[in-house]
Each structure stands twice: as C-alpha cells, then as structure tokens.
C-alpha cells in the first residue's frame, strides 16, 4: 500500500524535504446514510508543496477538507499528521496542531469588526490589544492591508478574503487549506493572492488548494489530486497535463466542446438601453449610473465584473422587477419598455434567467411544471380562459428535459430536488423554448458542473445563431471569452464601453473590474470637458 502510494506520488523523493508527509489520509471514508461522500481516499501532502484538489461539484472535495479540518468526523480511515495518527475533536484542535483553513463561503461575521473576526478565529490566549498589534504586523508583512476597526459588511469581497487569510496566517499554520479562493476575485486580486501563496510555500508551509480553474492550478500547483464521485481518480503533476486532460479526469469522459456556428449575422437592435440611471432599492444596493448599450439580434454581449458592482440592479431594471420612470431607458424590440412590468416585457419577446436558482429563478417547493407556468403564463399558451392548461405545462417540462438533458428522478419533481446543474439546465431551457427575441441571463453556469455548463453555453450560442439577442452577466471570464462577441465591465454601477472579445485581454478586463480606466488621459479629458 505504502509503495503504491509512493508510485502515484509524482514528485521525486529527493525533492521532499521530510521523511514522511506532513499530512496523510489513509482510506479516509465519510458516509451519510447510504451515500459515500468520500470513499477510501488516500492523499499525501508534503511541506513546501501546493497541492491542488480537483473535482466537480459533489465529488467530495468539501467533505474531505472538512474531515481534515476536524469539522466532521470520518466514518472510517485515518489521518496522519507528521507521521503520527491523529483524531481531531474539532477545528480548534486542528488549528492548534497547525492546520488552517480559508473557507469558500467566508466564515465571517458581518456585524463584527475586522479585529473581532480575527480574534474569533484564534484561540484567545493573547489579549485583544496584543492580537490587534500582531494583526497589523502580519497584514503588513504579507502585503494584505486591513483596517481592524471596520465592520465586515462595509468591505469588498476581496477585502473579506484578506481577513480570512490573515486570520489563518496569524495561527502560523504549517498547512493551509484554501477552498476556491479565487472564485470571487478579479484577475489582479488573484495574482496578488498567488504571490502570497508562493511566499507561504517558500517559508516551508504546505497548501491544499481547491479550485475549478484549471489554468490557475497548472500555473500554481505542484501536485494535483482529482476526485470524482467521492473516489480518488488520480494524483498527477498538473504542469505536465493539459487543462483538457485534467477536465477529462474530473468528468470521467470528454466534455463536449462548445462551438459557435460560423457566419453568425447580427441583425436589428433588439435590446437597447439608453442612459439608464436608477437609485438602489435597498441600503446595500448599488446606484446604476448612466448605463447605455445596444444589443443586436444574433449577438451575445457579456457583462463582466466582481459581484456586487450593480449587476443585480441592472438585471432587475432590465427584467422589470424594478421600473424606470422614463420608458425610453429600456427598449425591447423597438418598443420603449422602461415602465412596463415583467409580464408585459415577456409579451414583447424578452426572457429572463436570474442568478439565484432557488427562490428567484424557481419556487423551490413547487413542481417543475408549476415553475414553467410561472414564467410562461404570459406568452406561452399555458393558460386557457384563466384556467391552467396542465397538459401544456407538463409538455414544456418534457421538452426542456429532452432538449437540455435534465436529469431528474421522476417526470415532474419539486424544483428543490434537482441538483444545481440540472435545475439550471431546466431554467435556461424553459426560457429558450419560448423562442425569445431577447434573453437576459445572469451567471448562467454558476456552481454548475462542467458537463452541464457546456450544454448551457451551447444553448446560448444556438439561441444567438437563431437570431436572438443574448445578454450574459458572468464573473467567469473564461466563460465570457468562450461565448460572448463583446464584453463590457461593470464597476460601481457604471458599465464600460464594450470591447470586442478578441481585444478583451484578461489584463484589460481586470483593470476595468478594478475600476481603472483603460485610457486614463482621455477619461480625465472627458471629465474636464
């Protein structure tokens, strides 16, 4: 068994600084009822190593790191730390041994200050004053500036992550787990993070790095372990693999490549936004500032940007969840629609897919057929003299199931019972089957596995080919590069001028996402004029 382990370990023995791995799991298994979330997983982590943990949603990555961090107790198998077997009673024991963790969904407290949040992640052996002083020192050493007195709700996502990282670093961990740290960062913020991680590695620490972003893993990580369906598939050196080969191992088969039809022609403007400004609806909201763009049939416009820069507000203004006083700000199919309700906009041929699947895109406890009716009642012939045409709603479910390969247990289950990817396929499918002239879709593949994401992206491309205008908001730049013809960036409620996708380098987009202007001189001139 041990020899087998070594054989799979791609790093030559000479490069390992210690005799035994820093952390080792042997046959680690976690069972929830009949479901095996982790099935006998062996993983070796050496000092001075950035070790990637790859896998699709539900592959068991989170379960594995939760066991290593002591948050859940494994059902079988063992964890060895510096060669000796350990049984973790909880995260505080893990921390005291030198295991730190940065969570994907931050484990922060919005109404507490930065210093209080950091104090909660430590074991409280030093006074609050000493801790604050050390916080300042650590954040300076690693170039992660933080204001200890501010409350978390006032901070940007990037700053929040800095708190998490500084908090973990203040425990001086030998081993740090990072769960999808770059999912919410701009490319520049991610680069900053990689500098910190390289430095931690040089200091002799080990890092377990969970990510979906394969290019990033190839660039940063020394070793990669791939999980699929709760089992370990392989351990490899990601630098010797291609993104495609890593993806194949994750999915266990080929992912259909997304292809744009050649010779897609743009036609008439179908969605026009003219100088749209809108005050925020709630205290934390973003004000939309003079947003203008024109979207033609046959075209896909991507909107990039870090979450919380006004994308939600723009979606609400386009979909009619929020109305504009001036009808001319939103023009759908040549008709001023800024003052029209969602239903009236749907009747003009528009369709909308919001970001949040459960609760916004669908009513979780209602059946799929009922959810189909909720967006389709205005313009899809599902209502007959005020009565629901049940056969028509079921037919929509069947067609969406067939066309978009929605996998579900029965013909018409509750929306909440579907997995994220399948539900998203259903929601996008439900709108596309209405043959919309304009489709506004927000984060179409957020938290969706690679296979389903490919299906959805292809569907959006096909819809554009058929002549519709498609507006895609996404934080995933690779996704936008793959399907959009032009990309604009939202920052603090402003929308940049769209760049043709071929010209939109990651650097340019990253600058825009961080609020910089591409041509500072011209911008200054414009303000002066």
């Amino acid at each position, binding site marked *: 068994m041990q020899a087998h382990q070594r054989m799979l370990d791609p790093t030559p023995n000479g490069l390992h600084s210690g005799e035994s791995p820093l952390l080792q799991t042997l046959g680690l298994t976690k069972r929830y009822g009949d479901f095996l979330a982790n099935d006998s997983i062996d993983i070796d982590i050496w000092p001075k190593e950035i070790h990637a943990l790859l896998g699709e949603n539900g592959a068991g990555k989170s379960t594995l790191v939760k066991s290593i961090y*002591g*948050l*859940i*107790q494994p059902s079988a198998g063992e964890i060895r730390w510096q060669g000796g077997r350990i049984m973790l009673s*909880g*995260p*505080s024991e893990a*921390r005291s041994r030198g295991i730190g963790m940065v*969570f994907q*969904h*931050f*484990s*922060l*407290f*919005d*109404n*507490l200050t930065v210093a*209080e949040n950091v*104090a*909660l*992640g430590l074991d*409280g052996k030093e006074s*609050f004053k000493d801790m604050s002083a050390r916080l300042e020192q650590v954040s300076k050493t690693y170039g992660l500036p933080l204001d200890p007195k501010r*409350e978390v*709700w*006032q901070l940007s996502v990037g700053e929040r992550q800095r708190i998490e990282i500084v908090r973990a670093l203040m425990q001086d961990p030998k081993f740090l787990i990072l769960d999808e740290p770059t999912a919410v960062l701009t490319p520049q913020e991610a680069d900053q993070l990689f500098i910190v991680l390289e430095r931690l590695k040089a200091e002799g620490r080990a890092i377990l790095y969970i990510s979906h972003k394969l290019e990033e893993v190839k660039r940063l990580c020394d070793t990669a372990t791939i999980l699929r369906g709760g089992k370990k598939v392989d351990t490899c050196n990601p630098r010797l693999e291609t993104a495609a080969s890593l993806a194949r191992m994750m999915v266990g088969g080929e992912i259909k490549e997304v292809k744009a039809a050649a010779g897609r022609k743009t036609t008439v403007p179908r969605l026009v936004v003219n100088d749209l400004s809108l005050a925020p609806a709630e*205290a*934390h909201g973003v004000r939309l500032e003079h947003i203008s763009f024109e979207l033609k049939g046959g075209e896909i416009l991507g909107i990039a940007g870090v979450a919380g820069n006004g994308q939600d507000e723009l979606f609400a203004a386009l979909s009619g969840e929020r109305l504009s006083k001036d009808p001319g700000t939103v023009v759908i199919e040549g008709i001023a629609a800024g003052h029209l309700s969602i239903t009236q906009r749907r009747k003009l041929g528009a369709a909308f897919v919001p970001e949040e699947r459960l609760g916004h895109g669908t009513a979780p406890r209602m059946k799929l057929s009922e959810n189909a009716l909720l967006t389709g009642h205005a313009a899809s012939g599902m209502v007959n003299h005020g009565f629901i045409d049940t056969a028509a709603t079921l037919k929509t479910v069947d067609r969406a199931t067939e066309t978009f390969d929605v996998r579900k247990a029965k013909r018409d289950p509750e929306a909440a019972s579907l997995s994220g990817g399948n539900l998203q396929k259903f929601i996008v499918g439900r709108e596309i089957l209405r043959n919309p002239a304009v489709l506004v879709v927000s984060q179409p593949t957020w938290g969706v596995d690679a296979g389903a994401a490919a299906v959805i992206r292809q569907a959006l491309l096909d819809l554009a080919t058929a002549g519709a205008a498609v507006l895609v908001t996404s934080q995933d730049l690779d996704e936008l590069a793959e399907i959009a013809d032009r990309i604009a960036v939202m920052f603090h409620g402003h929308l940049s001028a769209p760049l043709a996708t071929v010209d939109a380098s990651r650097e340019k987009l990253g600058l825009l996402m961080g609020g910089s202007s591409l041509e500072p001189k011209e911008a200054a001139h414009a303000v002066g004029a």
Partner: protein
Amino acid sequence: MELIEAIILAVLAASTPLLIAATGELVTERSGVLNLGVEGMMIVGAACGFGGAWLTGSIFIGALFGIVAGALMSLVFALMALGLAVNQVATGLALTILGIGLSGLIGAGFVGERITPAVHLYIPGLTDMPLIGRVLFGEDAFVYFSIALIMSVWWFLYRTRAGLILRACGDNHVSAHALGYPVLRIRTLAVMFGGACAGLAGAYLPLAYTPFFIPGMTAGRGWIALALVVFSSWRPGRLVVGAYLFGAVTILQLHAQGWGVGIPSQFMSALPYLATVIVLVLLSRARTGGSTAPAALGTVFVPDR
C-alpha cells in the same frame, strides 16, 4: 417635593422587573435565539419565588426559587427550540401559555397569603437626604442588583472573549460553527440566563413590589420586556434608558388618571408598544448598512456532523 420623590421611587420599582427580564432576553437574543416565553417564565418565577419565601420566610431563598424556576422553564424552551430545532416563535408562545397555567397550579395554595416584603436599604444621614436620599440610598436589593446586572452584561458582551463568541453566534451561526464554536451549547446557556433573569424579574413582583401572589400578576410585563429589547436595538445602554422610560409611562398613566387628564388609560398602556414601533421605524430609516438586530435571530440551526 414629596410627590416627585414618591413618583421617582414608584418609577424605579415599576422599572426594575422590566430591566431584569429584558436584560436576560437581550443576552438570549444576542446569541441568536428569540424566546417569546418571557411572560410565561416570569409568572412561574413569581409563583415559585413567593412559594419559596412563604415556606422559608427568606426573601433571598424566594429569589433563588424564582431564578431556578425561570431557568428550568427556559430549559424546556432550549430542549424544543435548540435540541429539536422546532420553530422558536411557536415554542416561545407555547411556553407562555404553559407558564400561565403552571403558575396558577403552583400558586393556588398561596393565594391570599402575605409575606414581609424585601427590606429597603437604610444608611442614616444619606437616606434621609431630601429628594435624592431615598432614591439613591433607600432601595431594596433587587434595584441595586438590576443595575449591577446590566452593567455586568455590558462588560461581558463588549469586553470579554466569551461575550464576543456569544455575539458571533447571534450574527452568523454557520461561521461560528465552522470556526469550531459549540453554537447550540452557547445558545442553551444564553437561553438559561434569559430564563433565570425572567424568573427573578417575576419573583420581584410578589417579593418586593406587592407582598402577595395573585395569578396573572405579571400582567403583560414579559411582553413589555420583549418590546424593550427591540426598543433598545439590542444595546445594554439603551436598554436602561428604555426600561426606566417604560416604567415611567406605567406610573404616569396611573397618576394621569388620578389628576383627571383626559387621555384614555388604554392609550397610555399602549404607549410602550407604540414607542417600540416608532423606534424601529427610525432605526431602519437611519441605518446605513449592517443589521441592527442579531442577524441570525430566530433562525434554526442544525449542525452537520
């Protein structure tokens, strides 16, 4: 002069049970638990407190009985709302109904009995000072205790690590759990503290306010205490101001009737609740961000294992 002093003394006496009960509920809610059973815990505290004092002849033991009774009542709540993750609003309301019935049963034998009420402090010279003498130096132990209690709670919440952890549980129980804090244990303790305070506040009524027990003698003070926590926007300092303000309104309402002021007494009794609504509106208007209430208040938490 005499009248003003009498009014101030009466306001202090009327405010003290509100302050004690609301202090307990403030800690409970700061940990993220909404226990609407304050009225029920108070009335059981009143019955047991009176019983204890009547049987032993000691006000101190009576107060202890009240504390223990309130804590036991809150334990029932903790078992349901935390242990079994039942809806907190429903459980709290049920606790109040249970408490009212239970206190009638416990107190049935004591109705009509009298005890010697809690003694008031007397320091020769100081207590005899005009106007402020009796207000500052002539109160019963409960009044001084209630002020010490709210000050300790402030110190605990904002100056100790345990208090920080408690507030963290109330802000985001998922994060607190992820960092390894025993959310349910912390909340159970907070609920029991709230219960003990409510029990003591209830016991104050027959031990110091009026020296006998009658069923239903809390007369809605538990609900006022709940409103008070919201009124204070979960801050101990404002809670003190609110408690004395609400106490003053109750007393003024009595005097207003005596003076023949033409305001219906029902309107005066409704004032505390009206004030709470107005404060809530003002707070949410003035708010620039963050949340005033503990963000996890009233939400069910089931840790994954």
